[in-house]
């Protein structure tokens, strides 16, 4: 899931300062689960903006604003309210905001900070678990990702900053990813994977940004 957090209200209001008519777009997927852009939060935001003297021309929670098809489908019936507005307030992740910008062609303001690709333990407890590196190596590391869970992205074992299984980064609060990996592989009887030398990662594909996957080219 893409983990988001609402920006401080002052920051949102600052961006909205030049606009008096605002339309709000929420997200029915990740931001709903994170409680940052679901029905409830969109409604609350509308109330807040009204109190701040804005006119809210309407709002909609798109099933997944990052999906151009769903965005078009779910905003179709709100066309007029969107047109009336001067700016769109997007309670979505960054990918959602950019899809909205591209397809609705209005000034768009992000209401959320997109934090990371993570795991939800419970509401209010989110952990980063994948950096979308492009070449998943989880099999070799016992299902624990060193790219995201080791701040140095070590590939061959713990660095000298490990202490009692904890990581030097962040003040020895978090588990050292490589101790977790070692323990897990040992448990699984797969220590050979730990023992083998991992060569430097090949970033040549990752370096070509932004990454795109185009299996069937559409006519635009």
């Amino acid at each position, binding site marked *: 899931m893409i983990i988001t957090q609402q920006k401080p209200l002052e920051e949102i209001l600052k961006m909205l300062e030049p606009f008096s008519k605002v339309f709000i777009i929420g997200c029915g997927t990740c931001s709903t689960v994170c409680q940052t852009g679901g029905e409830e939060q969109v409604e609350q935001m509308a109330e807040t903006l009204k109190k701040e003297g804005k006119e809210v021309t309407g709002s909609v929670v798109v099933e997944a604003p990052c999906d151009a098809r769903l965005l078009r489908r779910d905003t179709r019936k709100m066309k007029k309210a969107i047109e009336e507005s001067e700016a769109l307030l997007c309670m979505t992740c960054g990918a959602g905001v950019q899809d909205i910008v591209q397809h609705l062609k209005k000034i768009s303001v992000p209401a959320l900070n997109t934090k990371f690709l993570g795991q939800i333990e419970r509401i209010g407890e989110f952990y980063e678990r994948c950096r979308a590196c492009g070449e998943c190596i989880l099999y070799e590391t016992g299902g624990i990702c060193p790219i995201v869970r080791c*701040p*140095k*992205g*070590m*590939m*061959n*074992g*713990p*660095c*000298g*900053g*490990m*202490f*009692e*299984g904890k990581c*030097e*980064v*962040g003040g*020895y609060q978090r588990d050292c990813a*490589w*101790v977790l990996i*070692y323990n897990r592989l040992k448990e699984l009887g797969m*220590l050979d994977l*730990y*023992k083998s*030398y*991992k*060569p*430097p990662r090949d*970033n040549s594909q990752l370096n070509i940004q932004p990454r795109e996957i185009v299996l069937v080219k559409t006519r635009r």
Partner: protein
Amino acid sequence: MATQTVSNLMADLKDGKFVFTGELEPEKTTTLEHALEAARKLKGYVVACNVTDNPQSFAYISSLAASYLIQQKVEMEVIYQITCRDRNRIALFSDLLGAGALGIKNVLALTGDHPTLGDTPQAKPVFDLDSVQLLYLIRKMVDEGKDLNDNPIESPPQFFVGAGANPNADPIEPELIKCAKKVQAGAQFFQTQVVFDLDIAKNFLKETSRYNVPVLIGIFPLRSYGVAEYFDKNVPGVKVPEELLEALKKAKKTPDKKERKQKYNEINLNYFANFIKELKKTTSAAGCHVMSVGYESIIPSLAEMVK
């Protein structure tokens, strides 16, 4: 693997001498005054000196430039420390060629501390390679005369290549396996993090003896009770032994400055001479890496005592 002797450090280790290496930590400077002075004090007592690469992620003068200047001005052989924190594989390769061109003979390949620990925590961490991969790169340059993509180097550098190790690691198993990987990648010697506890040193040496790679145990003479206390409280994983801490605490109460200094010296000499003698007598340790930044004066007497 290259067997040609490329440095004094390598020669002494090959001869089976019990060697001492020192540590120089040039800071925010262009004159290197302190480091040069320290190097002069250590000259003749250590075979070579490490030159640190922005230790604890404090932004200091380039360790390559400092290594070169120390070798030039003091004629002290250096162990050039190079970390993966600030350089991608292009910059690492490039600096290593530079080191070769500048006559540097020993290289210590380290991962490096994370920027969050230092005085510039806003910096973007690089860590394109880790220490094992860096060792692999250096050996490839030296042994095959090639870069990581097999492009040839015109007159490749000759280095004696070392790695770090942490005998205090807890758990120790993943660290020991990592040491094995470092040997496989081509590490020719180890310098360990600071060890105070003889048993920890002995255990580590026992576990690594099968690799037949010389291990220099890191020691840290304690200039004052204040330093000892700071070390004990702030360096995770390293405990200053109770007796040593107590003795230093007692010495701290000596009112006369000169006398106090002398007491500190006695305590250190007593503790570390025994430590080193025991290492020499009962273990395969190839020597000691003495990290006595600001306390170089202790080394001559210490070296004398354990002869």
